[in-house]
């Protein structure tokens, strides 16, 4: 009897497959799992960062960051449900209105915001709730740029279209720079990676990367050595590839540009950057020059991570990260806690989790049928990657100190929510991709 019933059930299944819009079965659970893993690990490390053996407070206490973060994590789950329930087409259809609204919000913030630590980026919603529209600008720009690249009558070689895309990408960061949030503005450079996938010339990527490399190298290496190295490298390249020899004048021109850049770095650092930005550059070059001043964060961060050794000191056993003297202990410098308490093994595992997530997102992006969805997927990966690159880089002295959080990991509601929105819009679109028509 039972067997018959079982058979009949099995055979009935294909016919009774639900055609409802419930998307859970199509959700990319690997990404969801990685998300939960990062959020949970982040929460524990936030507790470790604020933990003081002199005054042990429960991890759930709302008086400390870990308790508050838990509330924000809970709210994120609600957010996720909303994002998954809402019709996924909304994101494409409303991409421009959302973008326009965020631009407006950025401008309003610029006008009405009271400066907090020099930054005019926080919108006071009253009742102690503050919003940073710059965080929301990331996903809004990603949506708008993807929508634009996905539009049917787009001509990539058309100069006008290129200019529109550039405007979509760079208007928000310009406003954000005016709000004095240079760190958040830099994130928009990440879009280049997504555009590269959609057909942008690799030259831009190469030039951009080379410029950044030359800039940082100029700071770290004496100018004469650098110029000698550039000269030798270019000469070698010209000698090895006859095609370059034919473009000798171009090579000479390029050499002049590079050498000019090297000499203009000083001018840029000393006369263009603001004093606090100069300090961050100096901290990158030689944090030990003023270990109690501008070098403080970097020195302390490296000492904390370095003292972790291979296996780390163990959960809550860190001694360097236990004082609240580095103000961003649980936000921007959360990676120090991992480094100190979980050592090289823990740090590498975390880097591995991020790489898995990033590669997974690229995979998701590639399986989308619409240009909009694919571009958006690459934007998500690029933004997360840029945060990861700069945030971890600055804690280990490979990047200047830029106040941007580690995605899903750092303490803070605005940041957690904005990354959650960013990621789960992609997952919602992905879960419904079967219904989308290919363009």
């Amino acid at each position, binding site marked *: 009897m039972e067997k018959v019933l079982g058979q009949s059930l099995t055979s009935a299944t294909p016919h009774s497959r639900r055609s409802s819009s419930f998307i859970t079965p199509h959700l990319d659970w690997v990404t969801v799992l990685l998300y939960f893993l990062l959020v949970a690990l982040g929460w524990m490390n936030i507790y470790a960062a604020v933990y003081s*053996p*002199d*005054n042990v*407070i*429960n991890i759930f*206490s709302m008086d400390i960051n870990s308790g508050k973060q838990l509330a924000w994590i809970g709210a994120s789950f609600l957010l996720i449900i909303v994002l998954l329930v809402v019709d996924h087409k909304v994101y494409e259809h409303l991409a421009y209105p959302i973008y326009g609204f965020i631009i407006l919000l950025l401008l309003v913030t610029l006008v009405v915001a009271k400066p907090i630590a020099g930054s005019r980026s926080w919108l006071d919603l009253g009742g102690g709730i503050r919003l940073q529209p710059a965080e929301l600008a990331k996903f809004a720009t990603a949506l708008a740029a993807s929508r634009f690249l996905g539009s049917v009558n787009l001509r990539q070689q058309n100069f006008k279209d290129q200019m529109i895309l550039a405007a979509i990408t760079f208007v928000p960061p310009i406003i954000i720079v005016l709000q004095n949030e240079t760190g958040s503005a830099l994130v928009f450079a990440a879009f280049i*990676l997504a555009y*590269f*996938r*959609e*057909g942008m010339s*690799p030259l831009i990527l190469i030039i951009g990367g080379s410029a950044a490399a030359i800039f940082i190298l100029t700071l770290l290496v004496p100018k004469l050595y650098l110029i000698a190295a550039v000269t030798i490298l270019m000469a070698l390249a010209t000698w090895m590839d006859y095609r370059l020899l034919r473009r000798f004048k171009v090579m000479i021109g390029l050499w002049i540009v590079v050498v000019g850049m090297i000499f203009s770095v000083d001018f840029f650092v000393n006369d263009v950057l603001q004093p606090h930005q100069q300090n961050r550059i100096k901290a990158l070059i030689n944090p030990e020059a003023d270990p*109690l001043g501008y070098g403080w964060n970097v020195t*302390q961060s*490296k*000492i*904390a*991570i*370095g*003292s*972790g*050794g*291979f296996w780390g000191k163990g959960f809550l056993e860190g*001694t*360097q990260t236990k*004082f609240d*003297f580095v103000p961003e202990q649980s936000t921007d410098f959360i990676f120090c806690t991992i*480094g100190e308490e979980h*050592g*090289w093994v823990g*740090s*590498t595992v975390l*880097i*591995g989790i*991020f*790489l898995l997530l*990033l*590669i997974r997102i*690229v995979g998701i*992006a*590639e399986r989308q049928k619409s240009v909009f969805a694919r571009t958006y997927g*690459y934007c998500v*990966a690029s933004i997360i*990657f840029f945060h*990861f*690159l700069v945030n*971890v*880089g600055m804690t*280990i002295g*490979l990047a200047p100190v830029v106040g941007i959080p580690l995605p899903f990991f750092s303490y803070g509601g605005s940041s957690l929510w904005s990354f959650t929105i960013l990621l789960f819009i992609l997952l919602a679109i992905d879960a419904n991709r079967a219904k989308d028509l290919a363009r």
Partner: protein
Amino acid sequence: MKYLENRKYVIQGIFLVVGIVFAIRLFYIQVVDSSYKQAAETNAIKSIIQYPFRGLIYDREGKLLVQNTPVYDLMVVPKDVKDLDTLRLAELVKLPLEDVRARLKKARSFSYVQPSPFYQKLSTQEFAYIQNNLIDFPGFYINARTARGYPHQSLGHALGYIAEISPKQLEDSIYRGYRPGDYIGKAGIELEYEKYLMGQRGVKYKMVNVRGVEKGSFREGAFDTLAVAGENLISTIDLDLQAYGEHLMNGAKGSIVAIEPSTGEILAYVSAPFYDPNLFTGKDYGKNYMALLQDSNKTMFNRPIMADQNPPGSIFKLTQALIALEEGVISPNTTFACNKSLVNCHQHPSPLNLYGAVQHSCNPWFYQAYKALINQGKSANTFTDTAIGLKEWREKVLSFGFGQQLGIDIPGEKKGIVASTDLYDRVYGKNRWKYSTIYSLSIGQGELGVTPLQMANFMSVVANRGYYITPHIIRSVGNDGKPLKEYQEKHYAAVSPQHFEPIIAGMSEVVRAGTGRRANLQKVGIEVCGKTGTAQNPQGPDHAVFVAFAPKDNPKIAIAVYVEHGKWGGQSAAPIAGLMIEQYLTDTVTIKEQEKWVLSREYLNIKSK
């Protein structure tokens, strides 16, 4: 567009390269380069707690009740202990070797990295000796803090004491901010006013190297905070009066509570047997505490607020008369015969009016007055009528502060007992009890329990002709000297002011020519109004009670004296009250014969009834 799809490998490649570069860089920082580990060790920041001065407590005249004295604790941080010579350590602190090992084990089990007290409350000599040798014991250091000190031996029960915070308290979130080894108020004023007295700890951050040698202050003290001393308290206690009260009660058991009626301020608070608060400050605190806790006289029992099982006896007749007057069932001129068949009495003129009944404490008079009060004929059924009467009576009794916590600022106050219909319904069944069941209440016996504090407070009500202010022992907190807000409200008894005069007149007669003559202060021109009482005690000699206030007009002191096994209120309690009143009002004692009588304890030899 196929070639564009291949760009995903470039992008994933960039991700991978960055990840690998990070992993290599981390490997270099964390594993290869050991300089960061050394830096971390030389980089340790030590937080040094700056203990605040606990607030001082003064009496109403500005005499110091509680002060701070320096003590030294030997602390240990197990993590920092290196090459420990346990034997030498044992010699240093003069403790048996096993004890030293046990203490170390305890410290380690508490925390490996946090300091915990190894040996507390070193004497000054021990401190000097140990300090000189400490250099050989890394991980050990001396922590100076202050302990409580008392320039007198009085008021132990009210002051309470401080002691190390218990592990259980540490787990409780309301004690957040306290650390192991901190001292916290455990009883009395020290507990009640902990949040004012404790002050605020300060922290100094010092950079130290591996050997714990200070390398200067951290970031030039930018994060240091100064300790903020606790707030001082001004008590309402008159230390001279308090000491005198304890002198009079020395060797006896019982309570004295004296209150200034107009303000509710407690002038004296004696719980006998009493103890010297200094017993709880030294190294022998634990031993002394256990000894007191276990002693057969129940020294630690805070009698004025906790002894609530004893009936008030005849002093309650005043309450009964006041309520009966208010209800209009008697007038000052109502006379009843001393009918000993109703309830036993002693020899006195009969019949009596209200004044005489108060003066002579006539039991049958109050039996009849209370019957008139309870059975007012509001129901034809005598059972129901009694229940109605008792219920209404009880409400008025409560308005005098009986049967509830008055709200004194000493923790542990008991409510006392006032007979209720519920109680009798439970014992006898509904409608199964009537006046003949409950008549003992008329003379203050039966289902009544009153604390000495409630008795003194009752005297405040009478002295004020109708109201009391919550009795309290702290007048003000901090330097502004303003009285505490919560102790300014008048609580009115449900009896009109004019009904108090006949009662007070009767009380005056009690002291002039009745049972309270030993409290008589006529020769120094003070008119004392009082009432004696005897609380029946099935376990031994009866307890003696005397309540009084003085002067009759514009009263300055209301007092309740309770002498356990004192047999007769007039013999044992009344003279104590008289002496206290004279001491307080005139600062001298002229009725020396009463003082001698009290101290001789001869009243114990009087034959009991």
